[in-house]
């Protein structure tokens, strides 16, 4: 009763199908044979309602993954295998490519270390090529600022920690490593333009970096001390709207940092908390604790009740603010506590929420906060999310 079938042999069975179809003409038509050897090709560019859920896979870090989900249907669309100590994928400016800084060892957890930026076709989720980079990628808790693209999509910036601090610059147009920029005392990458980004420093300053067209350092300048890194530190997990990066402090102060023609400017801070909120010990927290929706000028923050040492805890609510007025306009009661949130970029946005200690992705209406659907069995330890 069992047949060994090579895919090519399936075609040979077609005459039998046809004959059988004739024989049962009076009954419903026979279901046709399926082709063999086919794989899904995704729409390109992607839907704005898709989301990449990055997963460092804490208990088995050699098998890091990024998982693509359609927020409208709740269907998993595919995945990438992304190696050791994976942070997150970066999408090309036209969304047709995926750039993934990855680390491999020749024997899984030992042997020769090789760091690469793998370039994937976003429709086929298949590797197109890779660029070898210095084996210095920071091994950190995954966060968005681990790596990012300059605004024109030309240069991929990757934070290194060996424990010396630097940034690798990779030319994604010429597909070559362009150089390394030393950033002692300063961490991570926050793009501000086609040839500029900044890092955040231990002394409360920012380090502004200007690149040449070949990706080398044109010049750098350090701002004055703009925040208090000791008593109420800004988290390193801000979100960006236009020329402004919105940082939040442990206590819930928003510190906007704006790129101007004269360099970075710290705008007046404002608080997520009313006095009554502070009295109830509400506080922002999480791994990807903020999200922003540029079109409606909204900021989303995961909130929980806790003391100063709880700045990474998940929260049961997301509070939504109007960035123009700094007023809270909504409190979203979450279906499950969230440590990570992300919002789609379109006019009818979705709000995505997950938590590194769960394997569920909850999807909400980004405007009215209604829970729309949940996706289960998703990943192992989901970290940060990326929307097209």
């Amino acid at each position, binding site marked *: 009763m069992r047949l060994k079938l*090579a895919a090519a042999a399936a075609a040979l069975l077609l005459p039998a199908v046809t004959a059988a179809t004739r024989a049962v003409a009076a009954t419903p038509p026979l279901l046709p044979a*399926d082709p*063999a050897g086919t794989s899904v090709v995704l729409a390109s560019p992607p839907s704005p309602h898709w989301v990449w859920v990055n997963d460092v896979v804490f208990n088995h870090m050699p*098998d890091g993954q990024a998982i693509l989900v359609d927020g409208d249907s709740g269907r*998993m*669309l595919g995945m990438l*295998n992304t190696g050791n100590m994976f942070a997150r994928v970066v999408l090309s400016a036209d969304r047709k490519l995926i750039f993934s800084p990855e680390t491999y060892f020749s024997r899984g957890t030992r042997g020769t270390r090789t760091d690469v930026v793998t370039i994937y076709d976003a429709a086929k989720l*298949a590797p197109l090529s890779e660029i070898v980079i210095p084996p210095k990628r920071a091994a950190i808790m995954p966060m968005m600022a681990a790596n990012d693209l300059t605004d024109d999509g030309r240069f991929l910036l990757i934070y290194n920690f060996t424990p010396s601090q630097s940034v690798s610059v990779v030319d994604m147009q010429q597909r070559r490593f362009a150089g390394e920029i030393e950033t002692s005392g300063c961490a991570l990458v926050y793009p501000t333009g086609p040839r500029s980004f900044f890092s955040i420093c231990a002394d409360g300053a920012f380090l502004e970096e200007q690149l040449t067209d070949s990706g080398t350092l044109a010049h750098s300048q350090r701002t004055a001390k703009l925040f208090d890194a000791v008593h109420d530190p800004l988290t390193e997990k801000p979100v960006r709207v236009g020329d402004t990066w919105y940082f939040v402090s442990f206590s819930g102060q928003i510190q906007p940092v704006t790129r101007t023609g004269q360099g970075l400017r710290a705008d007046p801070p404002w608080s997520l908390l009313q006095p009554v909120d502070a009295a109830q010990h509400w506080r922002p927290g999480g791994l990807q604790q903020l999200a922003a929706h540029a079109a409606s000028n909204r900021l989303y923050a995961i909130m929980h009740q806790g003391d100063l040492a709880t700045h990474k805890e998940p929260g049961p609510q997301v509070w939504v603010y109007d960035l123009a007025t700094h007023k809270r306009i909504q409190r979203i009661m979450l279906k499950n506590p969230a440590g990570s949130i992300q919002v789609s970029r379109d006019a009818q946005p979705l709000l995505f929420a997950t938590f590194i200690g769960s394997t569920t992705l909850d999807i909400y209406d980004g405007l009215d906060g209604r829970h729309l659907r949940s996706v289960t*069995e998703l990943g192992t330890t989901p970290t940060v999310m990326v929307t097209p």
Partner: protein
Amino acid sequence: MKHMDLLTERLTRAVAQRSSRRGFLGSLGALMVGAASLPLLPVARGAQPPAEKDHASTQDPASCEYWRHCAIDGYLCSCCGGSQSTCPPGTEQSPVTWVGTCHNPADNRDYVISYNDCCGKSTCGRCLCNRNEGDSPLYVPFQSNDYDWCAGSHSDIPYNCSTARIVAPAR
């Protein structure tokens, strides 16, 4: 108790399908029947007795009870970015595979179903489904679900999920 009920149910009903199957993850699914707690793995819904399977689920490709899955063993590609007959993006359908014969209640016909693995990425991890009877030991390879059939693919052994393709009506 539930386990014993299930076994009793199995013992007393006729084995209607003796179709073949494939899929490396088969014995994992089989072993999971009767496990008190399964922290990492979804329960193989194929372990449910037929009485619990409603008609709708037999027509849902993302359900373990989907009619074509009578002999499947692995993660369902329909939950992983593919479909019952197509691999998820970036994975390759294994050319060497095994077939079963399944009954479609919607047209009351039997079809030969080929369970092709999708290869080249690590396990999808969603919708583990194990509906296996007639499994043989490894020394009868083409009746054994303890092989990773991606071994026959260009992508080599990394296994992502399994499809269930209609090949032809059964005669």
